């Protein structure tokens, strides 16, 4: 029996230097690169997770965090099925910045190996995640701690989303979402479906689902 294939697009967002690329590279190629250069534009990764009878193909857009690429970000989250919001637990600024994003699946606090320099408490990040109906993780791209869980969780929720819909066209983020211009969840059109009570996962559902292919 062949597995059902689910294709999903994921976008990784967050301030420069929080370790977005490190997380993705650590997950996909087990590359323990201590000092990765700043990403230019955006990098595109693919990976596959097999869970039960599903093959989840993840297409990951790893975006550059620098300010000058900000205007390009809508291009990447448009048609994305899920977003990872990454912040650095040793940088308050990076945590505050992700709060300007309102559409989330996972909030990821990176650099958990630097807990000694922590300035963003776990509880606070969890509260924020709950408030936007997202899920919170802490990871360390250096030690690989927690990274597997993030992607596994993503795959699980995508399968859940698929089963709930039974529609090959997965719900995607609305074109209109924006960064700082969007003060609250209310400004987003479309309805929110709660996928899993335990996991507090929320997914914005575009009224008219769009195909995820480019």
């Amino acid at each position, binding site marked *: 029996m062949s597995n059902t294939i689910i294709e999903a697009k994921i976008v990784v967002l967050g301030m420069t230097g929080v370790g977005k*690329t490190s997380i993705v590279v650590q997950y996909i190629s087990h590359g323990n690169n201590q000092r*990765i*250069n700043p990403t*230019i*534009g*955006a*990098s*595109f990764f693919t990976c596959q997770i097999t869970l039960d009878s599903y093959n989840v193909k993840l297409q990951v857009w790893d975006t550059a965090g620098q300010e000058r690429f900000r205007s390009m970000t809508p*291009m990447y989250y448009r048609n994305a099925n899920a977003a990872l919001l990454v912040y650095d637990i040793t940088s308050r600024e990076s945590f505050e910045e992700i709060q300007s994003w309102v559409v989330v699946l996972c909030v990821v606090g990176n650099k958990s190996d630097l807990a000694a320099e922590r300035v963003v408490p776990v509880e606070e990040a969890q509260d924020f995640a709950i408030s936007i109906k997202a899920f919170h993780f802490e990871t360390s791209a250096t030690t690989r701690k927690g990274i597997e869980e993030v992607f596994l969780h993503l795959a699980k929720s995508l399968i859940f989303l698929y089963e709930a819909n039974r529609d090959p066209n997965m719900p995607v983020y609305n074109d209109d979402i924006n960064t700082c211009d969007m003060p609250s969840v209310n400004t987003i059109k479309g309805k929110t479906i709660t996928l899993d009570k335990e996991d507090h996962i929320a997914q914005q559902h575009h009224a008219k689902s769009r195909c995820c292919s480019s």
Partner: protein
Amino acid sequence: MAEEPVVSSANDDEFKQGSEPGACRNSMLIATDSYEDIAQYLKADVCQSDVPNGKSTSVVGDADDASETSTPDQTVKCQNRVDPEETSVCSEQCTQYDRQEVSSDDSAVGDNSEETATTAVTETGQNSPKETLPDISCINRQLSSLSASDGSPHSVDTDQVCQPASSDVTEPSVTAEEYLSPELDYVHSAQWKNQDKHIFILSKAGKPIYCRYGDEDRLVTLFGVMQALVSFIQSSKDSIRYIVAGDHKFVFLVREHLILVAIAQTKESSTHLLLQLTYIYNQVLSILTLSQLGRIFNMLHNYDLRRLLSGTEKTFDNLLNVMNQDPSFFLCAVRCLPLETSVRDTVAQSIAQNAKVKDLVYAILITNHQLITLVRMKHYFLHPLDLHLIFNLVSATESFKAAESWTPICLPKFDSNGYLHAYISYLDESCDACLLLLTVDKDLFFTLSDCKRKIMEKLTKHHSLKAICESIRRGNYCISEAGIPELRHFLYKSRSTAQFTSPKFEVPYTAEEDRQRLFRLYQHLHYRIHCNSRPLKIMFTVGEYETLLGWVTSGFELYAVFGPLVTKPLAINSINKLLKWIKKEEDRLFILNSPTF
């Protein structure tokens, strides 16, 4: 004595324009920019943006040329002596202005004044105002203390560099201790001052943007001085070009929104330094575009541009490092990966056939600052200046190796106001070749990713990938392949295709410092041949360690290095043999036709 005419007549017949080694066969591949065109381009830009009346005299060129007519060997000997010609060629007012500077220098610096004569050269050199002399003395004091470090290293005095604010520089009230706090150490250390070449980028308002060494926040005062110098000269409707102070040259490139300054003690000509600044300026444009720069600075005069350039320091550092060792930058030419014609044609065909996408402008396959192939849209050419920025972007960005990337890039010679979108991906993990597909459509990523997959299939099928990897692994060719024992090394540039070739560095140029010395010799030869006031066709100079021969015709430029004992007839005989060899190998060394989509 008689050899020179012989060589020119014999070879002018043999290699008429269009038939010299590496001449392009059909329409030009990259661009046909000669060095003179670039020089013109540099000049034109300066005049356009900075001198409202657009009247520039040749004062600058002359002064520069005269000061640098000594051979490198002589220059080494007279390190601490300022060539008297330098000042004498400047216009009268200019000289007067210099003397005033020197005299103010005396009072400020004392010990070092004997060795630190300062020459400032401006665009017109005529309107040097005298009434604001006190300002200049402050500025000059800072400058001279910066340049003083080489004149007499033992007398370097840190407190002279670190003036806190330009308003009270002349007050000797500040003691040395105040400046010797540990965090200020590096930028005021002798090590910092003795760096061969400093590069600074600042905004028109004097805000620091980039510096090669140290933390620009610690150098705010120095940036202020540079800005003051530029605006001081500008206030008299003139534009500063460079200042010579002892062994240091301070070269300024003033653009609409930015000021770029090079401070070098490398004995490079100011033309070469100016060209390097232009590359750096183009690098800024490549990241931000000219229109965005204009928008930002028109909105906020004192905007801190570092916010938008964050994460790009490596790109600038890399560009500066490469410019210090790769002759392709001053030659304004591109090196091609040596490859059999059949292989190169197959590669180009595979790309052209599988990347037939509307709005795709260029498909470029490169490796380590060398071009493998270039397929372009009809009627669009890629300028070497732009290609160097692409080379630099790829070599400075490790992250391209990890995944396919999609990024906006501005190619200033193509269009300085808009972005092209680049799909960037290495062919294969085992192969250091990187494919770039440049388009004007920002939504083409997945289409182009698909093209790349098809191209890869074709390349693997035709075994081209293996041939490319093999050539990359083998590296550049050895000079011994040409079979000319007297010849140690050479650079050959085909002017019609803007491509050049040179063998790898071998004994005696294997050590880094020898290679650096050879590089400077090539630069010097290039400068002498192209100098504005007295361009040369052939130059033969005998030095302590080697003999150099430079030869420029309308079709090519050749710079050759022999042992110090080679005779003129032998050298000329050798380069004739060399030209025949290059002609024989031209299909492998150059890209002679230019496929289009």
